[in-house]
């Protein structure tokens, strides 16, 4: 389908939307759903039907609005663009919300004939009008939680209807794809991404433009793009949210990558624990095919591209690119030695780009606003924004996107609203099982790849778990070691046996059987595993132990019987 046709669709949708005075966005992403968003949106819809004049307000189901701990979340958007957030919106609150949102013109209302059932709902609305409880649900837009964020990846998440291609188009979707196809050479695209300073958001932070360049220069009849949606880090769900709540954004990024490297086919590798993400991505692919965005001659150009979904089956290690490749090939998800790197020999031995979801989701915006725009966000070496899943002992937990370089202090105390109750903030854990704990003494650390690395942690995929003073660090370290023991693929001995022995030592210490020399033994073993393991999983598995040993050694020492 040609660009013009798509524009028509977009304009049509924009026109349709602009006919409403107000639009009520209701989050139906996993977190809010489990908080009862299902009932909330039903009530909103029923009430709208019963309300005297329905058509001036539209109820829209959207994705995550961020503040998951306060779900179900609802946003009322004025034509002017002015917005009000409502938290903990249960059915009752939903009715009051509608009652106060629609304009009550009785003259018109009289003319409307409505059924007895609706009449009862309307009566309820009438009474709801008089209620005064809505106020306490309002979230001030001045909350640091909102003001401190800078949204690139999540810009449209929470606004677009993930199951409506039209809505995505109405928000300027696929303009970037068209831009590269129409105006840019593959080489230029790679350079643009390189200029933007975008780095892999999967954790390692390899410059994306560089990676694309490698693959572009490879001579091969077939090349692949793989979207790494195997978000295994327990405590992180950024990628899931983007795939669920704005699937087309990821698809668009993937296709731009494909054009840049000269790939004709690609795969989304999504972990099976994300059924909704799988459905939404599949839906997006189907819709894109229907509209000629995917398939032969994309947008009427001679660029052809096709994408499929492959589902993981519960293996953290499949986040490692070579293991992921084996998994897509239907084999055991076991990593192999690199080189050769996937960029030269990846899927079925062909040159392959593997990027994680967030990385590709950033691409359309970069193409749209230009490399310089993106590059001026963030720090010297770490450009742009990063999405974090804020969790743990914190008042505001949820999904946030912040510019690189923001300090931990800002995230924890301003965005996160500090640790609830009288417990105290103790440490922030980034990078999940591969990352480490950053103690409150390093609160001013700017969040960027290098700074976190210096502290023995990593940026990781974006899990940010806040630990308060009630948590024992050795036990916390053991939790991650359990995870690594469980998830080790078993190929190389340092990871297979080493992690087990690390855990054995931790057990010994935690159970009070430790001996003074055990701490050094633990430290040495961790370093051995780090330097001799085959893949990233094994190499980083000891990080949680090493970082807690470094910053909370006294907690370990305290566990060792003094007379021993």
């Amino acid at each position: 389908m040609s660009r013009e046709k798509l524009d028509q669709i977009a304009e049509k949708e924009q026109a349709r939307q602009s006919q409403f005075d107000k639009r009520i966005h209701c989050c139906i992403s996993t977190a809010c759903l489990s908080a009862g968003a299902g009932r909330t949106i039903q009530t909103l819809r029923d009430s709208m039907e019963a309300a005297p004049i329905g058509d001036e307000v539209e109820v829209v189901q959207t994705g995550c609005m961020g503040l998951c701990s306060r779900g179900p979340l609802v946003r009322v958007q004025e034509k002017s663009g002015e917005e009000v957030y409502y938290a903990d919106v249960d059915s009752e609150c939903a009715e009051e919300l509608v009652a106060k949102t629609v304009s009550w013109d009785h003259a018109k209302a009289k003319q409307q004939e409505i059924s007895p059932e609706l009449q009862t709902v309307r009566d309820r609305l009438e009474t709801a009008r008089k209620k005064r409880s809505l106020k306490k649900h309002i979230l001030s837009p001045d909350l640091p939680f909102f003001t401190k964020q800078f949204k690139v990846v999540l810009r449209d998440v929470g606004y677009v209807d993930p199951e409506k291609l039209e809505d995505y188009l109405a928000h300027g979707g696929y303009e970037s794809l068209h831009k590269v196809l129409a105006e840019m050479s593959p080489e230029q695209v790679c350079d643009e991404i390189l200029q933007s300073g975008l780095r892999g958001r999967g954790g390692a932070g390899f410059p994306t433009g560089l990676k694309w360049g490698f693959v572009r220069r490879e001579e091969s009849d077939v090349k692949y793009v793989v979207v790494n949606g195997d978000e295994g880090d327990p405590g992180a769900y950024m990628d899931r949210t983007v795939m669920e709540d704005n699937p087309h954004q990821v698809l668009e990024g993937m296709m731009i990558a494909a054009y840049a490297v000269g790939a004709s086919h690609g795969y989304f590798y999504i972990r099976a624990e994300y059924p909704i993400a799988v459905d939404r991505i599949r839906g997006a692919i189907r819709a894109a095919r229907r509209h000629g965005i995917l398939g032969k001659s994309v947008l009427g150009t001679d660029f052809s591209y096709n994408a499929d979904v492959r589902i993981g089956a519960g293996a953290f290690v499949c986040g490692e690119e070579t293991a992921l490749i084996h998994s897509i090939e239907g084999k055991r998800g076991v990593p192999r030695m690199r080189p050769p790197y996937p960029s030269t020999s990846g899927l079925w031995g062909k040159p392959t780009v593997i990027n994680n979801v967030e990385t590709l989701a950033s691409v359309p915006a970069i193409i749209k606003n230009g490399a310089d725009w993106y590059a001026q966000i963030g720090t010297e070496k770490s450009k742009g924004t990063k999405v974090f899943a804020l969790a743990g002992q914190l008042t505001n937990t949820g999904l946030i996107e912040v510019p690189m370089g923001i300090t931990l202090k800002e995230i924890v105390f301003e965005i996160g609203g500090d640790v609830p109750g009288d417990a105290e903030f103790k440490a922030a854990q980034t990078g999940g099982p591969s990352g480490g704990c950053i103690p409150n003494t390093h609160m001013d650390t700017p969040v960027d790849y290098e700074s976190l690395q210096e502290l023995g942690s990593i940026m990781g995929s974006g899990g940010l778990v806040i630990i308060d003073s009630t948590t024992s660090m050795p036990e916390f370290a053991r939790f991650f070691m359990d995870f690594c023991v469980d998830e080790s693929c078993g190929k190389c001995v340092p990871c297979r046996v080493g992690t087990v022995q690390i855990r054995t030592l931790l057990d010994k210490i935690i159970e009070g059987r430790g001996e003074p020399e055990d701490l050094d033994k633990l430290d040495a073993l961790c370093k051995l595993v780090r330097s001799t393991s085959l893949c990233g999983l094994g190499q980083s598995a000891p990080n949680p132990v090493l970082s807690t040993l470094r910053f909370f050694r006294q907690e370990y020492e305290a566990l060792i019987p003094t007379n021993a």
Partner: protein
Amino acid sequence: MSDTGPSNGKLKKAQEHPSGDDRYVALDRTMKRFHNEKDALLEVLHSAQETFGYLSEELLFYISNHLHVPLSQVYGVATFYHLFTFEPQGKHSCIVCTGTACHVKGSSEIVEEMSAVLNIPVGKTTEDGLFSLSTARCLGCCGLAPVAVINGEIQGKATPETIAGKVGRILADERIAQDQEEAG
């Protein structure tokens, strides 16, 4: 290699269906969709587990024959991924998230409680085949930690009590249903 290999019982079994059991038709459809390509193994295993509930020996043998992947490899792949199970699952399921956020907020107590209530270790199914208890590595609802999933429904900000309560109700209903059957 079955030509020279010993004629083992499994071979015959595998050759006798698909005729009878129409669940194999669904499986065949999946394999057909991937043109019986070896690399579809994971997808095929997924659909097999969906249709059959678990991966039986016959099932793996059937898949091995049709995708021309050595049985040992099929077994190796199936046992590598934790999502595949080799024994029938319970009628109801309770999955407790043990992701970091949930862990920090005490999901381990929930696991212990459930294991006590159902009197089975994690990853097992009650003898009456009613309930399976398992844990998951982060369901991505960290905002509502700790969470558990009962029969596909997510329970946010869970406590041992709330979850045990829900499971208890389901078990109670089952008993009533059984009694009625026996009665009528």
